[in-house]
């Protein structure tokens, strides 16, 4: 499956580059309204037509994908770092510290993820700007999504802490931060890497769920959630098949993230 992995990486790089160059490629701003052309069909000026407010759909797809492709990995990085810190300390310390931290992690894991998210999201200030709402949404995903990864990292850190090379390092006088930073963290890198790549599509999917429910990124800022929400007005009878393009791109992007991990790195 090496070819599938390579294709996925190339595809993700191509989509990311296109999104980063959105300012150059997009024919208009994501918020600009062509008021005389709402719900327009694809044309030379509007490659994917316009939405019901007359905004160029292609530009919105580019900017929306940029939001998700930049901020979902950032949120995944945040949650992986939190998981590394919490799980690493717990596994390395062992004893009551591990029991206490893991009890907290179990507690966090037992809370239903989407219920917790919509609870916190619903209580954010009413007057936040669209950009701030994007940052808050993804920061919230990063801050609440560490628990599962922390358990795995704790188990790995525990087995590493009992391994011979750590014992040797201790015997050579290494302790505390140095032991953690020089010996434990480098050996936790593969599991952290796997957790990072597992979290990215999870966060993209969760943001899409929140966005479709109207609890994600605020308008007029586009995101996958708001783009997919347009499917509400889709009808096979209307013949506007181009409305499905964001959904197809979404499936391709998320499946590419799934393919990036090799079979050995995936959980059972």
């Amino acid at each position, binding site marked *: 499956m090496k070819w599938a992995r390579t294709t996925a990486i190339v595809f993700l790089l191509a989509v990311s580059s296109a999104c980063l160059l959105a300012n150059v490629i997009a024919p208009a701003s994501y918020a600009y309204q062509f008021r005389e052309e709402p719900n327009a069909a694809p044309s030379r000026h509007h490659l994917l037509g316009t939405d019901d407010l007359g905004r160029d759909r292609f530009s919105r797809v580019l900017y929306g994908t940029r939001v998700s492709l930049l901020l979902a990995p950032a949120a995944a990085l945040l949650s992986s770092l939190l998981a590394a810190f919490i799980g690493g300390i717990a596994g390395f310390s062992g004893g009551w510290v591990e029991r206490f931290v893991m009890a907290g992690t*179990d*507690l*966090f894991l*037992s*809370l*239903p*993820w*989407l*219920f*917790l998210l*919509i*609870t*916190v*999201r*619903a*209580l*954010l*200030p*009413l007057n936040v700007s669209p950009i701030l709402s994007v940052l808050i949404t993804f920061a919230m995903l990063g801050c609440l999504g560490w628990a599962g990864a922390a358990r795995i990292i704790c188990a790995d850190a525990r087995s590493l802490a009992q391994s011979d090379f750590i014992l040797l390092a201790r015997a050579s006088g290494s302790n505390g931060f140095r032991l953690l930073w020089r010996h434990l963290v480098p050996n936790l890198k593969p599991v952290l890497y796997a957790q990072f790549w597992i979290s990215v*599509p999870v966060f993209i*999917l*969760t943001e*899409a*769920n929140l966005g*479709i*429910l*109207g*609890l994600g990124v605020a308008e007029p800022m586009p995101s996958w959630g708001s783009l*997919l929400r347009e*499917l*509400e007005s*889709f*009808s*096979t009878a209307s013949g506007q098949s181009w409305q499905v393009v964001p*959904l197809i791109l*979404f*499936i391709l992007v*998320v*499946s590419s993230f*799934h393919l990036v991990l090799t079979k050995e790195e995936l959980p*059972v």
Partner: protein
Amino acid sequence: MCGKGWAVAEDINTLSALPKLAAKILITVLLGGFLGATLVRLAPGFGVDEEELDARLSAQSVQALRETHASDANLFVFYFRYLNRLLHGDLGNSRTLQRPVLQLVAERLPETLKSVALGLALGWSAGFLLAVAIVMSRAWFLDLLGSLLVGVLLCLPAAVLALLFVLAQAPARLLLGLVVFPKIFRYSRNLLARSSALPHVLTARAKGLGNMRVLVWHILPTAAPQLLALLGVTVSVAFTAAIPMEALCDLPGIGQLAWKAALGRDVALLVNLTMIVTLVTLVANSASDLMGRTFRTSEA
């Protein structure tokens, strides 16, 4: 100790573990409620009402609105009052729907439980049977087909599936089955494949045992405890997916209630719903753990 005596002793152990398990669930739910209340209390928008944005309200009216939330300002007082009411069977009132939370939950929980039960039954039947068929037949095309289907389903958020169901006018209750199906299929397929490669299974096959016998007597008993653990996890997945399903397909369950409460910033209702769903998922997880433990004991 003879086999039967050992099994009886283990049964007693399992029974004696029940009160401990119940206490653990209770403590987790209480702590979970406290954590939820803390998050809610610390959220930057706490105490801010949408009505405050109404331009017709005077400064005094806005101040009066804020004072209605002042009693909840102290987290511990807020939580103590909540627990006190809970002990008297009162979950408080929904601010947006102007009705007791208990009444709302009693009306809507059965609807969600029905959807979750149907979804789990469908998802488990389809996912598990497909996994068994692939592992036993070793048909590569079936494996490829199953993996492709699951790959696409795993890339679709539950909310998109709900929108597609609305567009196709398909029965909404089937949606949860589609959400849990890929998880069950992938996990059981990997687990069964691993179990079928174990030395004792290979020996059984080499001795000429039929497919069905190998599956029932050798593969399933090895995989059963982990499959039972997955059952608990899928309950949580189904409850989570119930929010977009009920919100978008207009089913009057607690998922839709939670969505409405989130849009209306109804703190009391959201915290209660989170605690109720936490309780249900914890009970499901503990029950599946207990079943797995009992199964392992009887196998030993």
